[in-house]
Every structure is written in C-alpha cells, then in structure tokens.
C-alpha cells in the first residue's frame, strides 16, 4: 500500500512538473500590438513543391505568418491549432503561412504530411529572419492585417484562442 501511495505522489508530481513547464513557457509569450504599425516586409520564398510564394500577393487577406521549425517542440504543439484556425476562417479571408527555419526541406516534407497541414509552408532563411527584426528564437508569429500592416507579434508558443480573437477583430 505504501508503494501505491508513493507511486501516486510521484505520478502527481510528474504531471504537475509537465504542467509547470508548459505554463512557464506559455507565460513567456509576448503579445505586442504594434504602436506604429509597419508594413510587413515582402519576400518571395520557395514552397515545398518548389513554386514561389510572394507575401504581397496575399494583400487583402488577414495573414498569420508563423516562423517555426520541425525540431521546435512548442512550434509542433501550436500546429494543430493553426490547422484548425485555417479551416475555420479561410472562407472569411484568413491565410496562414508557415515559414520554416529548418536547415533543409526534408524534415519539413515529413512534418507537412504527418500533420496534414492545410496552409502553405515556405523555406525561410537568415535574410527573411532579418527582414522581420531577427528571428532568433522560435516560434514567432506575426499577424498581418488586410492592408499589409503588422498588427501583432507573438513570441513563444501562444494559445490559439488569443490569436483567434485577434483574427476575428481583423476579419471584421
């Protein structure tokens, strides 16, 4: 019986530990409504199928630009939420674009298939990161209004409900 009690305590400790780690990470997120909204820097980057995606061609849509990588655990956790947002709001004008900061496309192809991602992924590079003020930690997401201005920047894993509220505001 003592064993059982000890095991229960350890299990609860383990679960609490996981919860704490995730909570502490989520609290690291930084939401920055842009005081002086700047135009999202344009870029043209290769998609996984080799075709080129130009950001400015999405002007008129609300764009969630997500810098991520396959090896980034919080990025992976965010992905199902983004897939759901894309499914839910695409008809109203939302377009999510993933910018992979992986060193090569191979793991991205696998990830794309595995998660059945429903939005385009482009292969980012250092220059793209610098255009957006330096992507020196992942994930980082920029929410871009229909007029092409950056509305918000989220650093670290962000609860999709937070982003969803902003998307709803911009889609109105």
């Amino acid at each position: 019986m003592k064993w059982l009690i000890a095991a229960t305590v350890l299990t609860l400790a383990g679960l609490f530990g996981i919860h704490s780690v995730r909570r502490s990470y989520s609290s690291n997120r930084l939401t920055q409504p842009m005081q002086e909204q700047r135009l999202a820097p344009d870029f043209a980057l290769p998609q996984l199928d080799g075709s080129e995606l130009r950001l400015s061609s999405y002007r008129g849509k609300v764009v969630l630009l997500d810098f991520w990588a396959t090896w980034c655990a919080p990025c992976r956790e965010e992905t199902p939420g983004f897939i759901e947002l894309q499914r839910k709001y695409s008809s109203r004008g939302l377009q999510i674009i993933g910018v992979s900061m992986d060193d090569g496309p191979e793991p991205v192809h696998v990830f794309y298939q595995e998660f059945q991602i429903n939005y385009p992924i482009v292969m980012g590079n250092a220059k793209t990161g610098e255009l957006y003020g330096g992507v020196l930690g992942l994930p980082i997401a920029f929410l871009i209004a229909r007029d092409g201005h950056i509305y918000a920047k989220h650093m670290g894993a962000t609860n999709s409900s937070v982003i969803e509220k902003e998307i709803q505001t911009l889609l109105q």
Partner: protein
Amino acid sequence: MTKNAISAVIFLSIALLLTAQAVAQASSIPVTRLINPEDLVKLLQNSDKETPLMIQVGSHVLFAQAHIPGSEYIGPASTEAGLQQLRQRVQNLPRTQFIVLYCGCCPWGHCPNVKPADDALRALGFTNVKVLYISDNFGTNWVDKGYPVAREP
C-alpha cells in the same frame, strides 16, 4: 510478489516516466555545468582567462543571423548528423579543453539540442564543458542585451 506489489511497480514506472518527461531535456543539465550569458561575456572580455571553444549546436538559419563572435557552427545536436559533426570536431582535442555549448533556439526547457551535445562530450571524456544558459532565446538573452554578435555575410 503480491498482486498489489506488481501494481505498485507498474504504477511507479509510469510515475518515473512522467517525471522524466517533465524534466525537459535542457532543464536536466545540472546547474554546476551551466554558465550565464553575463559571465561568458566577462570571461571573453578578460584576456587573462582561457578562451573557451564555443560551439553552437542549433540551427544554421539562426546562426547565420546572429552568433557569438568566434563560435563555430556544428549543426543541431538533436540530430545524429549534428552529433556526429560535434564528435568529429572535438575528437583530437585534449579532454581538458574548455568548451562552451550553446543554442538559444527555444526557451531553455524546450531546447532539444544542448542536452544531447553535453551528453556526447561527457561520454567522450571532456571534463571542462559548460552549457550557456539561455532562458528564452538567443535574441532576447544575448542580442537584445547588447552582447557581442557576429553575422554571416
């Protein structure tokens, strides 16, 4: 062994597994093996001190944007290819070589690279290895602090 005892052992195993998961990879590196950014900066500025071999074990896209001057890019140590590169880089070095590993891709508890790199060097017998403690990411805890930065041309 009684039925209760068997149940307890199974339960304990699950508990230990969950606890191990909770201690995210980088978080399980002992504090004694860490070095803070400010301490590394001081060390690099002090010419009397031994300059460490600094190795970035994260993504090249991040390294190209910003890295510690003089540090070397090896590749993500969460991959076998990255670990292999790391082992090759250090294979001929004396085991007392002062080495600083860093990544900064993600918040500390989520970094997939520094712990495997640290483990690999320990397994090779290196005794003077420190891991740079980057709590949030390299941008926030190094670049934004105004510490020295180099970029790839």
